[in-house]
């Protein structure tokens, strides 16, 4: 699954930077019915984690109230050059990852 990551490629040491992520997922709520009355089974992303050089800096527990194609924006302090790793985990064994690099001067 494709994910869009928007994180600065370069930052000054100590700078507060914004990271924005968007991933494609239906986020089926489990509360909808088909026209003939059958309940559509729930299929959502339940957890999102961002790690910065291995250390967790942001985590979110998601519920059916999160819109389809979950968008998340959060902040972190640019401490050192390295890598951001993103992980989405969901129902039915869903798992997806992405990463982004940053150079801190």
């Amino acid at each position, binding site marked *: 699954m494709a994910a869009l990551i928007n994180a600065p490629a370069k930052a000054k040491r100590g700078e507060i930077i914004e990271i924005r992520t968007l991933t494609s997922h239906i986020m089926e709520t489990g509360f*909808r019915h088909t026209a003939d009355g059958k309940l559509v089974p729930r299929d959502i992303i339940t957890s999102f984690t961002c790690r910065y050089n291995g250390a967790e800096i*942001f985590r979110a527990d998601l*519920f059916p109230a999160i819109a389809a194609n979950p*968008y*998340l924006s959060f902040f972190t*302090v640019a401490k050192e050059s390295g890598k951001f790793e993103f992980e989405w985990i969901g129902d039915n064994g869903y798992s997806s990852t992405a990463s982004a690099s940053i150079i801190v001067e």
Partner: protein
Amino acid sequence: MPTTRRQFLSLAGSVTAAGAIPIIALRPLEATPAMLTTAIRNIVGEAQIRTGKVKLDIPPLVENGNTVPMTVSVASPMTADDYVKTIHVFNEKNPQPNIGNFHLGPSSGRAQVSTRIRLADSQKVVAIARLSDDTFWQVAADVVVTLAACTEEIN
């Protein structure tokens, strides 16, 4: 045979009873303010919840409840000994009262989270922040939704 008053009343009664049945099945599944309170207590426990520090940016009127932009920010220096641990967002009338839990830390730099949510009806949205000293701060916002999300039929 002339219709007696008794026959007429029993007939009228059965018609009313039959007419009432379909209404029950159409009521949508919905959380209640009591479920909202319970969901909040599950997170907060017995702690006191104060008003302030938290800011919830959400449009007061949305046309489409399927994707409502929302930003929660908390006034906090985000230092090693004074920071926001978690931000919890709840709703009053979706089928389930939880929207999301966002876990931050001193390295977040700024206590602010944005996402897009679904709202099944016009309702209240509540954001609660847990600070590093385990105090809880909340803010609530009312949102009017023209087109509801979540419970519509799919084809």
